């Protein structure tokens, strides 16, 4: 199965400052471990919400809202797409991630019929 990991990093999500070299090195080590286990399909980081937009749908009406957005805790700062055998496996991997704050969400991707 595929799972999407959404990194809701809290305050960090909105910071334009790059992470410290130590944090980067830790992250890279973890990411490499995932790669060597054949888990990572895709990974990416997102710009702060000040550069983003939202479109709200209401019947035929579309309203565009410019960032930044207030609900810092819910903002996604990065994502992974993993290939794992179970949610439990994803959970075990995620627990090993070198983060000291934020909330990370695991969501299973709906696969085509017959999977």
């Amino acid at each position, binding site marked *: 199965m595929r799972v999407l990991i959404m990194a809701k990093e809290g305050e960090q999500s909105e910071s334009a400052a790059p992470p410290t070299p130590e944090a980067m090195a830790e992250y890279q080590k973890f990411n490499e471990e995932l*790669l*060597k*286990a*054949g888990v990572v*399909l*895709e990974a990416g980081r997102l710009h702060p919400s000040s550069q983003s937009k939202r479109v709200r749908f209401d019947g035929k009406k579309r309203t565009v809202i410019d960032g930044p957005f207030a609900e810092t805790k819910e903002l996604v700062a990065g994502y992974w*797409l993993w*290939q794992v*055998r*179970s949610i*439990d*496996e994803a*959970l*075990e*991997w995620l627990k090993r991630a070198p983060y000291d704050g934020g909330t990370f969400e695991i969501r299973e991707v709906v*696969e*085509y*019929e*017959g*999977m």
Partner: protein
Amino acid sequence: MKELRPGRRETAATEAHRAIEAIWRIESARLIAGLARVVGDIGTAEELAQDALVAALEQWPVEGVPERPGAWLMATAKHRAIDLIRRRKTLELKHEEIGREVERAQEGVDLETAIDEEVGDELLGLIFTACHPVLSKDARVALTLRVLGGLTTEEIARGFLVPVSTIAQRIVRAKRTLAEAHVRFEVPGGAERVARLASVLEVIYLIFNEGYSATAGKDWVRPALCEEALRLGRILAELAPTEPEVHGLVALMEIQASRLGARVGPLGEPVLLLDQDRACWDRLLIRRGLAALERAERLGDALGPYGLQAAIAACHARAKSASETDWPGIVALYDAVAQLAPSPVVELNRAVAVGMAFGPAAGLELVDALVHEPTLKSYHLLPAVRGDLLRKLGRSEEARAEFERGASLTENVRERALLQRRAAECAAERIAG
């Protein structure tokens, strides 16, 4: 003290079991590889790893899952390894060898760190050992899924639709064969590496193919096996990044797997490549496949057999519709495959491409040359391809006979139904014509 309700305790135990299963999946290959380096053979290493798993199953549901579960399993297995070596020593079996083993075990006091550092090479050693040419293909497949994929005997048996006892037997025999042949746990170098790598790639592709077009049973595809094979391929590509054929195989599997969702119709019936809805192809896997193919191309002067097959798959992946396929390009790639790895099956595929590029008559001429090929005698795709070309040439009655022959040759229920349907269509065409 608060009393735990039985229901809750049960939940905690179930949770621990699920965690153990997941942790085993993540850790078992490294665990077995690390232990094999110490004790010298993967049979013993796997037993020690299993012992550690049993200990975890006893202790974790009660005491909770440790903070570093991988390290816990390794430490537990290591203690048992040292016990085992001591026991063997007291029995005075093979003096010298045990001396070496104890030395090795003592050297590796901090086995964990050693394993963290060299995990790449050890895992590679494990792959090469499980796929050793001294073993039969079936044995290599079973052992690889067991020690590298972390699959249970039951899961492997389910994947291949054979009784559990058959797989268990295969694994036991494989371990015995490796021990009797004194196969050393190592990553081979030089000319031997080339041959041994070919064996590894073959095993991975066998697993993939069994999932991609199941040879028997009621399902046409079994995606779980494809996923296992892809995962093994992706791991291998990270462990041996300079081998072009590894990337070639990964590219081939990624692109083929991108069509899994389009290969099966709503009733479970097979849908052939040119009839597939290309909107259902998995763009992510295609992108990954094309990237892997690029890596293979960058690494070598010319593509190997897997790289070439990936390049053919890439031609289909790049075509926006079946009619836009670069058939002459595919014919040229099949020419190259036929030069490197000639086989009747490759010739048959080449004939299909020729038929598409230069017309059914040209294709049929090539297929007719294969009709008496002994290795294709019971290969259902030969009459299927021949039937297709005959039908395009308007020779419906001959085509019908070929599709019927093809249907009688396949063990796969879905594939048989497809060929029977084609035969019926030909019969109808004949009446209409």
